[in-house]
């Protein structure tokens, strides 16, 4: 293998598993260390710069970082990355003085943002400080998009949502609420320099089953129903509720039903329990609230007697998998199962809808009637029109919408300053030794053996009695500290300098997880078979040095390195050093490191 090019920022970026997995690439270990140091405001700002909604995401994020966390490769559970973010948000001081200054003198460029969900708000957050004139249009009464209309208040209190949405709306942006944009042409006609479409995936899918016509009054589309609860148009539901679907929307529907009078609330899903789309924790939360999940039940018809909905019939199936792992649901042949219901909520998915975009504006639509959008620049085939969030490639989640927003803002800034939108700015990276003295590190290198701490919950009865009572209480600072200490500091990198190495094997001997081998070089596949410990996981890189005096090379399997620093402590010549690798995705108009980073380093 060729010696590893550690100057390529992507090499170490990949080693920071959580940050790499995060769509917005939030510097996770950096903020976790700040939490452990009780520097909550600094920790919050590291997040705010990267993911814009730390308090919201600390409660609701889909957390793609957690399954990626290195910790799951050496023990059972990942660091509670998401809930630590909430610790920073809950314990921070005011951040008013840390927010970017908005120039009085604008740069003359006018940008329209359609929809006020997290994607559009991120674009606004990045462009307003650069002097852009921002006009936002949204058909709801306030900003936040689905974070307001869909995510129930018992998961996300309104105050938390308002606070973080308002940091952006207060940046001098012109927001027009309660306005439906029904023609993109009319927006373009206002001569904006760029238009960003962040209208989400607002259309719920339904099931057209026999009996629906007669049952219609008691059958709702999940996302419409959740919105009407959030906007207080709906305040109650029948005692017996069937929720169809196995995603997170179904989980929010059933839990909300329990709070609005539903006593016998059931989730009924076609697929096996393990294949359900909902996150494991969402399913756990629903079951904890006394909601059974019936899996392998395919809805067949609405049973209506004398004009009144009685319930539904389901066919029992079992999942079979062919050699390629493709699943088919095969009826078991048993009798149809009848379940009583007063109301039925259909939560089987949502999709995009762009009836308001004229098809002669130079915006190409594909065969699924989705706009053709570039996955790097978020530009459509009309150079002035950009898409992001759920509107770009279908329903995802908040953090993805934020990531899109940042990139679209860069594109808009490039376009408006006459530069090439494909000329993307490189990430901002620093690499700094953590050595404080002989065998002393400026990070806490000891590895805590603690198991993941559990977030305490409000008493069940109280929670079910009040739709707005937040269920999770969050970690107290003490538990937050202990959980933060579980982080392995994967951003503190092991840097190897071959000219210093005397091949004494000290690092090989001390490494608790057998990461290091000195051996003859070879092709990767073959080399992997000769390492100190099994190294099958090819998604994790090998760090290979140049030739050493004995003609061998140092090979380090990054897979289960604990970043404990022992290799560097045991190295007599400091051929190993522990260096903090800080990686920040560059935001629109940023030539200098963002404020949070300077604060964190101070």
């Amino acid at each position, binding site marked *: 293998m060729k010696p590893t090019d550690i100057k390529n920022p992507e090499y170490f970026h990949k080693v920071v598993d959580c940050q790499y997995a995060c769509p917005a690439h939030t510097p996770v270990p950096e903020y976790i260390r700040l939490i452990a140091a009780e520097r909550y405001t600094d920790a919050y700002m590291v997040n705010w710069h990267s993911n814009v909604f730390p308090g919201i995401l600390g409660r609701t994020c889909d957390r793609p970082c957690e399954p990626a966390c290195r910790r799951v490769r050496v023990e059972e559970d990942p660091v509670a990355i998401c809930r630590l973010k909430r610790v920073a948000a809950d314990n921070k001081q005011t951040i008013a003085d840390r927010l970017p200054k908005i120039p009085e003198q604008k740069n003359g460029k006018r940008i329209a943002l359609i929809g006020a969900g997290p994607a559009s708000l991120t674009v606004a957050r990045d462009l307003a400080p650069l002097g852009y004139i921002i006009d936002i249009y949204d058909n709801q009464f306030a900003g936040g998009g689905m974070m307001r209309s869909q995510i129930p208040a018992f998961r996300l209190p309104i105050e938390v949502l308002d606070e973080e949405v308002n940091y952006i709306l207060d940046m001098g942006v012109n927001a027009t609420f309660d306005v439906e944009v029904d023609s993109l042409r009319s927006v373009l006609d206002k001569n904006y320099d760029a238009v960003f479409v962040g209208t989400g995936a607002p259309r719920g899918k339904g099931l057209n089953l026999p009996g629906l016509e007669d049952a219609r009054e008691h059958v709702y589309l999940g996302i419409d129903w959740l919105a009407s609860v959030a906007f207080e148009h709906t305040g109650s539901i029948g005692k017996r509720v069937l929720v169809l679907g196995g995603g997170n929307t179904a989980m929010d529907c059933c839990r909300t039903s329990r709070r609005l009078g539903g006593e016998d609330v059931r989730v009924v899903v076609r697929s096996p329990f393990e294949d359900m789309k909902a996150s494991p924790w969402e399913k756990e939360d629903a079951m904890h609230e006394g909601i059974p999940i019936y899996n392998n039940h395919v809805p067949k018809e609405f049973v209506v007697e004398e004009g009144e909905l009685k319930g539904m019939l389901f066919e029992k199936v079992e999942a079979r998998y062919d050699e390629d792992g493709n699943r088919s649901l095969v009826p078991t042949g048993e009798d149809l199962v009848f379940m009583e219901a007063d109301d039925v909520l259909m939560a089987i998915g949502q999709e995009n809808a762009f009836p308001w975009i004229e098809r002669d504006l130079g915006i190409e639509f594909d065969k699924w009637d989705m706009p053709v959008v570039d996955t790097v620049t978020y530009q459509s085939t009309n150079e002035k029109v950009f898409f992001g969030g759920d509107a770009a490639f279908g329903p995802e989640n908040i953090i993805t919408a934020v990531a899109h927003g940042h990139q679209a803002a860069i594109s808009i800034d490039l376009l408006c300053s006459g530069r090439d939108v494909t000329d993307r700015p490189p990430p901002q990276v620093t690499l700094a030794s953590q050595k404080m003295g002989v065998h002393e590190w400026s990070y806490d290198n000891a590895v805590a*053996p603690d198991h993941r701490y559990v977030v305490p919950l409000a008493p069940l009865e109280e929670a079910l009695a009040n739709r707005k009572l937040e269920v999770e209480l969050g970690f107290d600072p003490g538990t937050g500290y202990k959980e933060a200490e579980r982080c392995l500091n994967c951003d503190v990198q092991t840097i190897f300098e071959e000219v210093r190495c005397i*091949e004494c*094997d000290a690092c090989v001997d001390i490494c*608790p997880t*057998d990461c290091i081998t000195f051996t003859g070089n070879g092709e990767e596949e073959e080399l992997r078979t000769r390492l100190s410990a*099994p190294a099958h996981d090819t998604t994790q890189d090998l760090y290979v040095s140049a030739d050493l005096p004995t003609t061998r090379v140092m090979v380090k399997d990054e897979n*289960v390195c*604990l970043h404990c620093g022992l290799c560097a402590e045991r190295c*007599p010549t400091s051929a190993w050093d522990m260096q903090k690798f800080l990686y920040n995705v560059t935001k629109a108009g940023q030539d200098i490191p963002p404020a949070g980073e300077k604060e964190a380093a101070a």
Partner: protein
Amino acid sequence: MSYQVPKFRHPELPVNDLGYTKADYEGSISTLCAGCGHDSISGAIVMACHELSIEPHKIAKLSGIGCSSKTPTYFLGKSHGFNSVHGRMPSVVTGAAMANRDLLYLGVSGDGDTASIGMGQFAHVARRNLNMVYIVMNNGCYGLTKGQDSATADEGSVSKKGDPNVYSGIDLCGTAMQMGATFVARSFSGDKGQLVPLIKAAITHRGFALIDVISPCVTFNNNPQSTKSYEFVREHAEATGTVDFIPMRKEITTDYDPGFSHEVTLHDGSSIHLYKMDETHDPFDRRSAINTLEDHRSKHSILTGLIYMDKDSRELHEVLETSQRPLNQLEEGDLCPGNKMLENINASLR
């Protein structure tokens, strides 16, 4: 400074026949200087004992005084241990081994501990062919007392202090052979590929097995003019051949060229394969071994690998025809066989 090794280990660590991973053979975190050769030898001992599937409670590790003699704390944390006085490890092992022949005795010593204050004890334990493994972590100096030249320092070798050594160095392998040792090998802390099979073979050998392991002292004796530095040893080491230890019941998978290859079956059915580099050296012949050692000494090259082995070794218990059972398992009836037996003995002496 870290005072603990993290608890986590590689999730796919191989387990041995007892179901243990290498981690079960580790000790506390080392307090030796970073880069000390002794730590690598500790690592090799861990690997050898793990791979041989020895039950940790069946091992006793004993040592004298010195950085080298501290190392038993850093390996085999679940085994018995005795850190004795300077140079006196051999007599403590002798006592222990005589009392309980069921344990594996692993003596760890330094060149100071062995070749200076402990020279007499070393000579006699070798001569008696006590069933033990005797590892010398040989750095040519007294590391623990800040690097004075030891009796194994080569003439002309210069330590960090800066003065060339005026005395000739004691060759512990030669001495051991002269004294009657039945397994003699030399190795280098920086070459686990050679050291681990040698330790395994030494453990399986019945009788006194010496491994003289050159083990650089990074702090006091690793400068370029020292003959015990990493660099010098790497440049001047010459192996007798490669040694492969094949445990009992394991299939031999490597193809050995019969011309240069020797297979030695050990008493428990395992075997050592020796693939020789040097045709003239016969490791099963003491005279040939001594000659080879002398040849290399005159060439200023460091002979490593298996140097001598007596295939017909009879260890001390066999020679003395001692009790087959450890003394602590003997009952009153065994020790006081009664009047009848006493009368028989007396009668036989009349």
